[in-house]
């Protein structure tokens, strides 16, 4: 780089960014150039037109030259410059700050300054200055050049940018969702700590590798296809949408994730940022709840079959009883008549035996279909049953924005029950309540409580109440009838089965409209004291 001052040719030192001189280029200029040649004049014009502040000082900090930018900056007339000391121009405070740099240049060493400097005419400015020794023909230092740029406005921007960057990085680092950026070829550019946790790879391991690393082989292939298609056709299949898919952890296990993708352009390249939520736990809970529902539905079916078989057995047993008793009566009469009549006697005995056989067949069927035998009954705490069913339905309760008021009596007696069946009853009642509430404006409250009813043999009381619309008198009357339902998608089996289950347990299931609106169902069950002493 060659550069000429207005009085003489100078060779500025090249400095590195730390201000240390890196090289002093030997001047290759012609000494005669220092005369005011047209070229020199145009150079002066050039320097005057620069926005940077340029000054030339002598040994004694006296001003030899200030360019226009510099004069304007300090509000000086063109003729007022020469003969002043730089301290007068920039002010004593600024001089105190910059003097070390001046002295270093005067000592023959180029230097730089970057920082705030007091400004005679206003608030301190953030400047970037370069200070170069100026030399005479003999190479002796005879002063210094001073080049300065006001970066105050830049600096504000820079700081703002730094703050923005810090903020973005904080968000990224602390986001609950995993955030992964890939380029248009699928190479991972970055992943945040949440993504590291979800997939088990550190950022250092994953960056630069293909994003299929984090997917199952099956989905990985799909993903490549999606990206390719999008880049080819611009047809967005993922962008801006939420999708559920299966990721792969470093240890090989699969992870259920929810993915949303955003796209941005940088330097003409397309990048995709994926926001990833690990929904494995939620999925597992959902699967568990589904299993429970299946189990409960199974119990309900079994129960219906058992009821049917019991009813059938009873209906068939009545005529069989009549047949049996008639045959026995005839046998008694034949016996009373004395000896003889052996064929008649034999036929009557055959009737007795065959009616017994028919009865055993019916009974076998009933046994086969009945789940109600209380061999599998266990001692249960009603509070636990209620809490478990509320847990099971927590998702639906939450989704329907229903508030649960739980009031469980600590001294509620233990009950001897088929746990799954009673849970099904509670489940049904809670589900009904939530469904009833879902259509209600305003606050939706589901109240579940357990009580000791000491006055009655049915000492355990479980109540499920809602603030829903309740039911009319006609509906109330038919509530427990089979196939009666107020729900569009209901089968009208739930309450009927619920009641028959509770009755199988020697209890009662009651329904009523609350004074305050909504329904209340009460499950009354015998306390264990006599259930256990029975055996």
């Amino acid at each position, binding site marked *: 780089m060659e550069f000429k001052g207005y009085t003489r040719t100078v060779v500025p030192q090249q400095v590195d960014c730390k201000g240390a001189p890196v090289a002093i280029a030997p001047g290759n200029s012609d000494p005669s150039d220092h005369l005011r040649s047209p070229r020199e004049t145009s150079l002066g014009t050039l320097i005057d037109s620069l926005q940077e502040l340029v000054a030339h000082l002598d040994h004694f900090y006296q001003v030899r030259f200030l360019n226009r930018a510099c004069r304007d900056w300090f509000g000086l007339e063109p003729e007022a410059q020469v003969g002043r000391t730089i301290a007068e121009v920039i002010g004593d405070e600024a001089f105190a700050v910059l003097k070390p740099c001046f002295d270093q240049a005067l000592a023959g060493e180029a230097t730089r300054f970057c920082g705030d400097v007091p400004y005679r005419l206003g608030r301190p400015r953030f400047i970037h200055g370069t200070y170069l020794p100026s030399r005479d023909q003999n190479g002796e230092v005879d002063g210094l050049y001073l080049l300065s740029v006001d970066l105050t406005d830049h600096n504000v921007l820079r700081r703002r940018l730094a703050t923005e960057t810090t903020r973005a990085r904080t968000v990224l680092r602390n986001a609950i969702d995993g955030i992964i950026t890939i380029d248009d070829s699928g190479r991972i550019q970055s992943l945040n700590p949440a993504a590291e946790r979800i997939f088990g790879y550190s950022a250092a391991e994953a960056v630069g590798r293909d994003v299929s690393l984090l997917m199952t082989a099956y989905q990985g292939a799909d993903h490549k296809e999606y990206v390719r298609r999008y880049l080819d056709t611009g047809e967005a299949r993922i962008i801006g949408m939420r999708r559920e898919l299966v990721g792969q952890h470093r240890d090989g296990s699969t992870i259920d994730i929810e993915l949303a993708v955003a796209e941005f352009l940088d330097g003409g390249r397309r990048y995709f940022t994926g926001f990833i939520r690990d929904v494995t736990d939620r999925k597992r809970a959902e699967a568990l709840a589904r299993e429970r529902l299946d189990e409960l539905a199974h119990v309900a079916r079994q129960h219906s079959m058992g009821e049917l078989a019991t009813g059938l057995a*009873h209906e068939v047993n009545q005529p069989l009883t009549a047949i049996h008793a008639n045959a026995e009566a005839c046998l008694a009469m034949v016996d009373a008549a004395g000896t003889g009549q052996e064929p008649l006697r034999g036929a009557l005995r055959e009737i007795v035996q065959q009616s017994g056989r028919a009865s055993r067949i019916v009974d076998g069927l009933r046994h086969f279909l009945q789940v109600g035998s209380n061999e599998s009954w266990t001692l249960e705490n009603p509070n636990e049953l209620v809490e478990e069913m509320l847990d099971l339905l927590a998702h639906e309760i939450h989704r329907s924005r229903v508030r649960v008021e739980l009031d469980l009596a600590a001294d509620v007696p233990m009950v001897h029950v088929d746990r799954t069946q009673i849970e099904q009853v509670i489940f049904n009642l809670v589900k009904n309540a939530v469904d009833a509430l879902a259509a209600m404006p305003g606050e939706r409250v589901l109240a579940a409580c357990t009580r000791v009813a000491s006055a009655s043999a049915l000492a355990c009381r479980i109540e499920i109440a809602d603030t829903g619309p309740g039911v009319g008198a006609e509906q109330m009357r038919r509530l427990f009838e089979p196939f009666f339902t107020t729900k569009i998608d209901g089968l009208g089996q739930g309450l009927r089965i619920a009641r028959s289950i509770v009755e199988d347990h020697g209890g009662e299931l009651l329904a009523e409209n609350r004074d305050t609106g909504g329904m209340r169902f009460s499950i009354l069950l015998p306390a264990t004291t006599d259930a256990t002493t029975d055996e």
Partner: protein
Amino acid sequence: MSESSVVAIVDDDAAVRRALGLLVESIGVVTRGYSSGTEFLEQWDSTTPACVLLDIRMPDISGLDVQDRLLEEHPDLPIIFLTSHGDVQVAVQALKKGAFDFFEKPGFNREALLACIQRALRLHGERTRRRAHRDEIGARLERLSKREREVMEGVIAGYSNKRIANDLGISERTVEVHRSHVMDKLEVHSVVELVRLYQETDSGNH
């Protein structure tokens, strides 16, 4: 068995009632059929030895509820339950509350059922006689005045006339008069008879 014994058959199924009636009548007792517990409770008025064959599972009121009502209204009447296989648990409950016995429908044993009915009828006859006797003694005791009763209690306790007179603050002579009234009213002739009679009453049994 006495000609006047009655077996009540309570079952909602007419065919079952007829068949059981035929069978039970083979031992020479009268039967009366009732199609529901309510009908039975409303109409039952027999004073002769009797028992009831009661179906547990009936649509109107259940056999167990009928048992509860009978315990109040006819506590001496023996109940033989007829149950289906599924109701064994209920039958156990009924036995605990004092049912006489139970048989499973439909394949009960004829001899066992008939023998059971006869035992029940005998029991009811005995209970009725004992109750009548107790009622009779009770009626006699009712005839005693307060003072006569006090004297009687002294006699039964084995006290002398003198001590009884002392305890009650009356003369020995008065005690003797009361004592002879007690013997007359209770129709006994000796202290031994008096004590035995007293023991047969409810108040003498504890």
